[in-house]
């Protein structure tokens, strides 16, 4: 047996939540992120039923692509079941350890994010439930408006600390 054990280490384990006046940052527990890749003409309702069965939420990524996200890590058997079920429609790539969630919440959340991204985050153009991938500074992140004042960022694990530190600086004016 190897002397080296596999250890679990959350990407943002040492980043404590940041609470400022009107905006807060929180690293989300590493749950489930499945990347679903289907043909470009695949419509959302066609796969939403299947993914919803496992309590996952679907977020649009690109043409024919979605993230299915959940707060808890699924067991291998459950992942396998989803993969088998979606096989006729979409390929599933488990990104649960590949992408890290950061929640930016508060009435000033749009103000903070606007410093780094070109997306128009106004209510009318980016309503609750809307998702898009865009640069935040020099880091690409998947942005979802989960509530009126809350945005969930999904970022590649290797960029998570860097994006977090950027967000800390971007929100400094509200400290």
């Amino acid at each position, binding site marked *: 047996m190897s002397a080296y054990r596999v250890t679990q280490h959350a990407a943002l384990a040492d980043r404590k939540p940041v609470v400022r006046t009107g905006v807060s940052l929180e690293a989300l527990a590493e749950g489930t992120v499945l990347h679903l890749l289907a043909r*470009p003409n695949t419509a959302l309702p066609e796969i939403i039923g299947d993914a919803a069965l496992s309590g996952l939420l679907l977020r649009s*990524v*690109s*043409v024919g692509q979605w993230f299915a996200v959940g707060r808890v890590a699924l067991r291998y058997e459950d992942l396998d079941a989803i993969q088998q079920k979606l096989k006729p429609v979409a390929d599933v790539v488990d990104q649960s350890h590949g992408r890290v969630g950061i929640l930016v919440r508060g009435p000033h959340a749009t103000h903070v994010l606007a410093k780094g991204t*070109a997306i*128009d985050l106004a209510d009318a153009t980016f309503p609750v439930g809307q998702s*898009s*991938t*865009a*640069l935040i500074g*020099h880091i*690409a992140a998947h942005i979802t408006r989960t509530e009126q004042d809350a945005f969930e960022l999904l970022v590649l694990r290797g960029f998570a600390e860097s994006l977090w530190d950027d967000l800390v600086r971007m929100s400094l004016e509200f400290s």
Partner: protein
Amino acid sequence: MASLVTCPHCGPRPKEEFTVKGAALPRPDPDASPEAWVDFVYLRDNPRGAYREYWHHTSGCRRWLVIKRDTATHEIYTTSDAAGHRGEVTP
């Protein structure tokens, strides 16, 4: 180069989100002459004016696009998903 590129899927985005992938040229037939293929693979014009290029929305939807733009005025005429141009070959 234009600062804002309107992706057909994502809307207007800064050019930093994109990667320019070179001239979008009609592909020769598989049995075209070696000269035609050398021309297609290696030889490029460097026009001042209208240009047609592949762009990849690297930090967005990650789709390949075909962008018609003007290298002199920086105007972008049209943007479209490259999938819609599949199978374009020289007449």
